[in-house]
């Protein structure tokens, strides 16, 4: 074996066993180009080699599922011939190394996944985690990530309509940047990245290929951070949203004119991955001519061209008699398009470059037959039944409410979302600040609701329970708008899979998520696993982020999350217990993480969602707001400050007053209903077996709990809105 090859494979992140496996597949020593292809395709990021055996336990079937996991994105049927395409992905490590470009290209990548299915990308949500925003490094990361997300989304004309941001020291050395995009399309125009016909052409569209992002999926995404990792900056891709905008319009026109057989985006592992996947999905091969790739730097070598992660590129599969039309559309939109290869029978990808065959490998060996690991795992012990949260409950109620409103994690994220265009696409019925984003489905009176959620503190205490709570909360947020939750996408952010305790918490989280999805009738249509989220040996909390998509039959019936007017009855659905393990109040008052996360009765949660949809369909709800972080205290603050409509309420009975406000018991929703509807509400709730308690009425300009709390809404709003800018040092 040449010492060059031997040195190279380790540098590329392959293990000795994986290298042996390549020798076995090829029956010879791999070329440099082949080695680069395998190292990327068999990386954790591309191959899911540590997670595959677990992800199979997630339910993925459902009546509305048109496309489950395995394609560029999941697709669900919305009725009336319209489909929604959606998926969430992480760009955590690039965003730490270079926040602006890392986050921007994360958005660009997920948008291309949606586009690859033939859909017009309509809107994005982002789930972000950082350390303490008052620290200069965290501030720089937050500013860079938010600016990058905004820059890319705003320039390509895809609205950014929601998501969440929270802060915890565990993310200080490894922030999380998860981006979800949804798109819409006529269901019959669904495209897949499958190359079924020999002789079909693979056309490379979009940007030139350069040396940026080489090894992004392997050395960057599939390894932990160590000190001095600034050197990985060249592994981060650089985005050009203008190019992407043109690519979107060109691809949509090609789809609309039915000039394509298939479409595939170029993301991690670049040309290697796109070629291997389109061929392997159909059991085909491809004759690839790398000389057809327009290069930014003519000195690039074959392996660099094959694995470059240069952005804004797509691979179109085209019948030969449509090629001229395809090239003409690309020319009109001003984007490059070149025939990269031709589909062949036999399953072999053969790559020619400057007169030589630089790679000749079975497509399936790259895309499907990579290593699969059942890594050693140590399942976490769930917290003991008697584990205590150890939270003092002696604070003044008013002080507690103000303290929660002033906490950057709980407080308004206006500072973030005012940097995003939420209007473009004339479909945003409810945007940031709502429980869930509500988007009108183009060409239809329907709407979808989308929410992302995930509480790392709960998952740290009990991975299975925390993951189930994330599914429940995201679905509850969606149901609060009146939408029926129908499908899930997930992004599983964990530390190194090589640690048995991390793998154990991963396995437990998948189990918890699977149980919740089953109970709530939610298939998982796709998503992403992000491992190695640790820095200098310090792991993040296990953080599964769940995106739930719901369907509203009538967009005009969407229920807002804030009190719209005075004179409404305020009700609480669900039962309040003293549950403070992992709570925001525990974090604020003690700084520790102890006890058990809130109990979750999945049958009760499902009944709650059904009830919410029924109430909304009968137009009984004037507002509905989920209770989660910060409990009833934060929910009622949010319901009042958004519109300035105050309320006078009593607290739910049976628990001490402060606990009633800050407990985070699951499966609860705050409602505002016209008094005339109260009786019907009570009857329907009783039939559904959901506890319903009348708390009071909306009105005035103060939030009042007689004898305990009396604060002007304007003061609450000031506190709630100022918290994040103040933490960032922008307000005194």
């Amino acid at each position, binding site marked *: 074996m040449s010492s060059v090859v031997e040195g190279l494979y380790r540098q590329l992140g392959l293990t000795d066993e994986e290298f042996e496996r390549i020798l076995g597949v090829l029956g010879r020593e791999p070329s440099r180009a082949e080695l680069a292809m395998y190292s990327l395709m068999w990386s954790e990021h591309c191959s899911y080699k540590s997670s595959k055996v677990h992800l199979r336990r997630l339910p993925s079937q459902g009546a509305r599922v048109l496309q489950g996991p395995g394609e560029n994105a999941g697709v669900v049927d919305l009725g009336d011939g319209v489909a929604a395409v959606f998926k969430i992905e992480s760009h955590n490590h690039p965003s730490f190394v270079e926040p602006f470009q890392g986050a921007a290209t994360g958005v660009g990548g997920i948008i291309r996944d949606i586009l690859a299915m033939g859909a017009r990308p309509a809107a994005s949500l982002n789930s972000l985690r950082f350390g303490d925003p008052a620290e200069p490094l965290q501030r720089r990361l937050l500013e860079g990530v938010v*600016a990058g997300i*905004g*820059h890319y989304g*705003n*320039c*390509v*004309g895809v609205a950014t309509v929601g998501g969440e941001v929270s802060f915890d020291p565990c993310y200080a050395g490894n922030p999380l940047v998860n981006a979800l995009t949804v798109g819409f399309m006529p269901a019959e125009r669904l495209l897949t990245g499958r190359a079924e016909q020999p002789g079909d052409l693979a056309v490379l569209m979009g940007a030139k290929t350069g040396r940026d992002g080489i090894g992004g999926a392997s050395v960057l995404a599939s390894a932990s951070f160590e000190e001095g990792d600034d050197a990985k900056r060249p592994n981060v891709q650089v985005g*050009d*949203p*203008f*190019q992407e*905008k*043109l690519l979107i319009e060109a691809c949509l026109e090609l789809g609309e004119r039915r000039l394509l057989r298939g479409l595939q985006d170029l993301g991690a592992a670049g040309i290697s991955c796109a070629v291997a996947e389109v061929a392997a999905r159909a059991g085909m091969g491809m004759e690839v001519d790398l000389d057809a790739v327009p290069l930014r730097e003519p000195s690039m070598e074959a392996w660099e061209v094959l694995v470059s992660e240069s952005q804004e590129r797509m691979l179109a599969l085209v019948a030969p008699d449509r090629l001229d039309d395809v090239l003409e559309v690309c020319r009109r*939109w*001003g984007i490059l398009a070149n025939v990269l290869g031709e589909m062949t029978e036999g399953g072999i990808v053969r790559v020619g470059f400057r007169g030589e065959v630089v790679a000749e490998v079975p497509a399936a060996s790259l895309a499907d037959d990579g290593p699969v690991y059942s890594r050693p795992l140590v399942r976490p012990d769930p917290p003991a039944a008697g584990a205590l949260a150890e939270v003092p409950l002696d604070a003044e109620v008013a002080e507690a409410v103000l303290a929660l409103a002033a906490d950057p994690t709980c407080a308004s994220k206006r500072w973030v*979302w*005012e*940097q*995003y*265009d*939420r*209007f*473009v*696409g*004339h*479909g*945003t*019925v409810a945007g940031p600040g709502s429980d869930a984003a509500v988007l*009108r489905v183009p060409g239809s009176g329907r709407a979808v609701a989308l929410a992302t959620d995930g509480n790392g503190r709960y998952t740290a205490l009990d991975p299975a329970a925390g993951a189930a709570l994330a599914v429940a909360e995201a679905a509850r947020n969606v149901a609060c708008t009146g939408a029926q939750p129908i499908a899930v996408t997930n992004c599983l952010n964990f530390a190194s899979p090589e640690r048995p305790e991390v793998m154990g918490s991963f396995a437990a989280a998948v189990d918890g998520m699977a149980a919740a999805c089953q109970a709530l009738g939610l298939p998982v249509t796709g998503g992403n696993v992000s491992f190695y989220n640790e820095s200098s040996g310090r792991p993040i909390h296990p953080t599964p982020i769940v995106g739930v998509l719901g369907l509203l039959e009538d*967009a*005009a019936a969407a229920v807002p999350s804030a009190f719209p007017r005075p004179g409404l009855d305020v009700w609480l659905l669900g039962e309040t217990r003293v549950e403070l393990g992992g709570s925001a109040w525990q974090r604020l008052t003690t700084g520790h993480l102890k006890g058990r996360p809130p109990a979750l009765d999945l049958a009760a949660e499902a009944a709650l969602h059904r009830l919410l949809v029924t109430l909304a369909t009968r137009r009984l709800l004037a507002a509905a707001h989920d209770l989660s972080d910060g409990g009833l205290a934060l929910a009622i603050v949010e319901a009042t400050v958004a519109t300035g409509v105050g309320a006078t309420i009593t607290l739910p009975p049976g628990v001490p007053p402060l606990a009633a406000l800050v407990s985070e018991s699951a499966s609860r929703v705050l409602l505002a209903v016209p008094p005339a509807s109260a009786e019907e509400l009570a009857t329907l709730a009783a039939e559904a077996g959901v506890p319903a308690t009348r708390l009071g009425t909306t009105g005035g300009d103060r939030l009042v709990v007689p004898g305990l709390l009396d604060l002007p809404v304007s003061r609450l709003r000031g506190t709630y809105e100022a918290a994040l800018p103040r933490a960032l040092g922008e307000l005194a």
Partner: protein
Amino acid sequence: MRIGVVTFPGSCDDRDAGAAVASMGGDPVALWHGDGDLRGVDAVVLPGGFSYGDYLRCGAIARFSPVMGAVAGFARSGGPVLGICNGFQVLCEAGLLPGALLRNAGLRFVCREVEVTVESTTTAWTSACTAGGSLTIPVKHGEGRYVHDDPAALAAAGQVVFRYAPGHNPNGSLADIAGVRNPAGNVVGLMPHPEHAVDPLLGPTGGRTLFESVLTARV
């Protein structure tokens, strides 16, 4: 009435503008940046977005596109032209409107609903508005700080069409100017996005009267 909506490479709000025109009873006509032909439209909208990527200076390249030659001729002959956000920037770059738009004072992109007051109703795009009335319309831009050598003279000439209401100036624009007109009043540019404010399901509807103005005008 046929209202042309120009698509430059990088335009983002062209579909929104077309939809707004259609929802108000007009007939939207797609115009392409590379064509010097306005297809016989009765009015032209230059939409928001990032024409040609706006990598040089906002609107600086778009003004040289073939369609802008035709738009300039159309404007000179009195045809109604509305520039929204990037379209406003293009009109300033093309010399069809006075002043220029610079980076926001806060140095960040700002997306929010703002209140503007109507200062001039003698334009093709505000004739149906109430003078001094206020409209709620969203802004979303990174480079919307309006500057002019002599804003007082501009106002005296009646060329200030919209001002941000007190406390609503999102970008540090001089004299709170949100929109201006040419001396004849057929060409108007503004940073707020009236096309995003026509449908009550999606929020405030302050943009409707702009489209009503041109749609009810005598042609």
